[in-house]
């Protein structure tokens, strides 16, 4: 029983063009040497040749670095608040990696918790995700340790696997099915294609060699939580910049600020980071003034607190924090060197 | 650059309280006329002017910034104006490289007795700024 489809790589342009009737399309593009998700220009599909992953995760499409929350004006009758009209236009991300797609599923938990977030969720609900399996993971990747197969994903609508000149297409959701039903260039996949895809997935899984041991990690972190010596040693070289958190696909902390220019006001929310001392600063004290406390917070939030709250580790092993770190601070080394209580 | 009819440059002046501010005061008392384009912030010394103030003023949409202090050797705090001189020189050159017209960053030495010089400086600077046109560096439409 063959259900999967396939499409020639050369037909990707046509496919995206068909979809662009309905969606704003985002694809990986290189801007000044940095791979980013950009609005598709209608032509460039070169990413199939060079694309490994984007420097910024896809979260920026749902939870941008800075976004307007609402605006406000003052007149004779007082203040008026104008909610911003949300952009209802449907969007489509082509080529999201399984790690980044899982990260969105993890982010959903926070943004749905208690009160639904009125900025993130509408964008999320309006977005179609076309996953593309990794064939060449980075040496910093450790997704397999977090239950992610770099070649597979159920967190997307369609999942593509690179099988040479073609992509094998798996329909994951109903939305994905409909998209494929309407696409003109899609063919039925053969048994050979399926076999090829299985090989590709297996190979890419095996290419991920960096590992962490997540078995009992929550408990291990709990037991060394108060071990100040350990955390001081681990955090010594950290320079407290925001790279690892800003580029992390599961980090969601934000700041809220007002700007008032000639009686026209706007409230913004923007990314914030637990690496910055001001993040927790209160007038009289700061619970995380010391660097080791902030590093501990970052590690524990992902591997201890998030699992306590939502029963899932808030890390997908994308390796950006290792790859982009100015001082090569490596979370996998930290996690693999947790002191075990004797 | 398109200029609106009747556009007048907005100039922000940081004046040392010991000299230039008094000079401006004197210009006022002696009913000397100078362009109303300048808004004045009194500072304890021209050395108090952090280049950040200058950048912030440009960010806020001022067309030019004037830092005015005591003549070399006359600083109330001995060396404040010398320090200001270095900072402003660097700021002016650096911002020029970034793409800000150098005329937007101005400096002068005006003593407490030079009401006349103050009016001249403000007039000249205003004239220069008129030639340069509005500062749209930080607006979205440049």
């Amino acid at each position: 029983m063959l259900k999967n489809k396939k499409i020639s790589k050369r037909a990707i342009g046509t496919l995206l063009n068909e979809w662009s009737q309905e969606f704003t399309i985002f694809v990986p593009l290189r801007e000044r040497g940095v791979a980013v998700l950009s609005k598709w220009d209608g032509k460039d599909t070169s990413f199939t040749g060079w694309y490994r992953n984007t420097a910024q995760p896809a979260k920026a499409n749902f939870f941008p670095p800075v976004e307007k929350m609402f605006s406000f004006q003052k007149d004779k009758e007082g203040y008026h608040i104008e909610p911003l009209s949300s952009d209802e236009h449907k969007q489509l991300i082509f080529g999201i990696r399984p790690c980044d797609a899982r990260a969105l599923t993890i982010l959903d938990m926070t943004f749905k918790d208690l009160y639904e977030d009125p900025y993130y969720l509408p964008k999320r609900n309006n977005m179609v995700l076309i996953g593309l399996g990794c064939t060449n993971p980075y040496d910093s990747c450790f997704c397999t340790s977090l239950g992610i197969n770099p070649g597979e994903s159920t967190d997307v609508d369609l999942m593509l696997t690179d099988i040479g000149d073609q992509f094998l297409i798996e329909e994951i959701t109903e939305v994905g099915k409909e998209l494929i039903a309407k696409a003109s260039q899609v063919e039925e996949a053969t048994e050979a294609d399926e076999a090829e895809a299985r090989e590709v997935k297996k190979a890419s899984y095996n290419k991920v060699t960096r590992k962490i041991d997540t078995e009992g990690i929550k408990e291990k972190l709990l037991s060394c939580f108060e071990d100040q010596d350990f955390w001081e040693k681990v955090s010594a070289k950290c320079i407290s910049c925001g790279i690892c958190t800003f580029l992390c696909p599961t980090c969601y902390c934000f700041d809220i600020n007002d700007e008032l220019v000639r009686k026209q006001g706007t409230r913004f929310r923007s990314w914030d980071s637990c690496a910055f001392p001001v993040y927790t600063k209160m007038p009289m004290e700061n619970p995380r003034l010391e660097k080791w406390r902030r590093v501990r917070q970052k590690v524990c939030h992902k591997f201890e607190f998030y699992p306590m709250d939502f029963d899932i580790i808030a890390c997908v092993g994308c390796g950006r924090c290792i790859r982009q770190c100015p001082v090569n601070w490596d979370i996998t080394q930290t996690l693999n060197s947790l002191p075990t209580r004797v | 650059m398109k200029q609106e009819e009747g556009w007048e440059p907005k100039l922000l002046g940081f004046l040392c309280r010991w000299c230039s501010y008094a000079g401006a005061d004197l210009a006022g008392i002696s009913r000397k006329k100078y362009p109303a384009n300048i808004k004045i912030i009194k500072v304890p010394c021209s050395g108090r002017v952090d280049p950040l103030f200058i950048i912030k003023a440009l960010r806020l949409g001022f067309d030019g910034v004037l830092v005015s202090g005591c003549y070399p050797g006359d600083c109330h705090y001995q060396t404040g104006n010398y320090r200001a001189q270095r900072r402003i020189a660097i700021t002016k050159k650096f911002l020029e490289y970034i793409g800000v017209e150098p005329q937007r960053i101005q400096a002068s030495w005006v003593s407490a007795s030079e009401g006349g010089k103050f009016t001249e400086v403000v007039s000249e600077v205003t004239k220069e700024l008129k030639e340069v046109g509005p500062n749209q560096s930080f607006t979205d439409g440049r």
Partner: protein
Amino acid sequence: MEDREREQKLHHEAKTLLEQGQVDYIIGYETGSLKFTTTPLITKDEDDTDRLVVNPFIVNNLSVYLPEVRGKAGIVAKRCDSRSIVSLIQDNKIAREDIVIMGIPCPGLIDLKKVELLLGKDRDELDNITREGDKVMITVDGRERDFPTTEVLFDNCLGCEFPAPQEYDVLLGEPSLSITDKVASRARIKELEAVSQGKRWNFWREEFSRCIRCYACRNVCPACFCQRCFVEETEPLWLMPMPRWQDNLMFQLARNIHVAGRCTDCGECERVCPMNIPLRSLTRKMYELVDELFQYQAGMDKSAPPLLTAYEPTEAEDFIR
């Protein structure tokens, strides 16, 4: 001297310093967790000193850790780092007697971004990178290719005058001749200087629209040692703490002016930028301006007053009315 020999000497020096209690900490480099990377090693433990390395990838300017380390420190320093140390001494952020400098004569470091661009491959896809004199050999897919050193060194290394550290207690190896390319070193600045003012502004505006305000450039910079940076001030609020190009650009302009005369052109800000913003085209220009206006180079003389606290009554003031 070979890197291997230098390393052995370094291990010995570092271990002795700790053993004899001359320093409380050693700050150096150890092999990083990714290919062709090193990572700072900050340790009190004598046994750790065997992990210290010297190779063409010791990129970090370790002097950034000095103000935060409590006690005496033995630090591995290249020329640019040693100048940052001198600059920190000038600013009274650290005391000379609290530091033992293990100087590395540095013939320039390999810029992996340039290598990646040259080969169209990412760092982790390369098999080997070695350096011999004025050639760098890179092995990819089993094939070795030669490149002139000047093509793969960091831009700032290409502009580095002299390989030996400015200030040191121990020198690990003999300084060899530097391979420089002054023109290539400031090629991007020259390009900018050649275009109109408006174009230059638009260039920076575009570049800074990508900035995410991670502050890596600031935090990695030894010259940015303020306890509280102006971007964190709220009364008055100098700029919005969010990544909009106006605020990003303002932040970087003010930062550059604040570190004028302290920046030693170590190039760390540009290297760490995750958005590839050419920050050195700002810092290097400032470095040149300072030199041109005041004949001052940062971190050359530990007894000289810092640039912005000093003056010469005779200085040119032709721009002042």
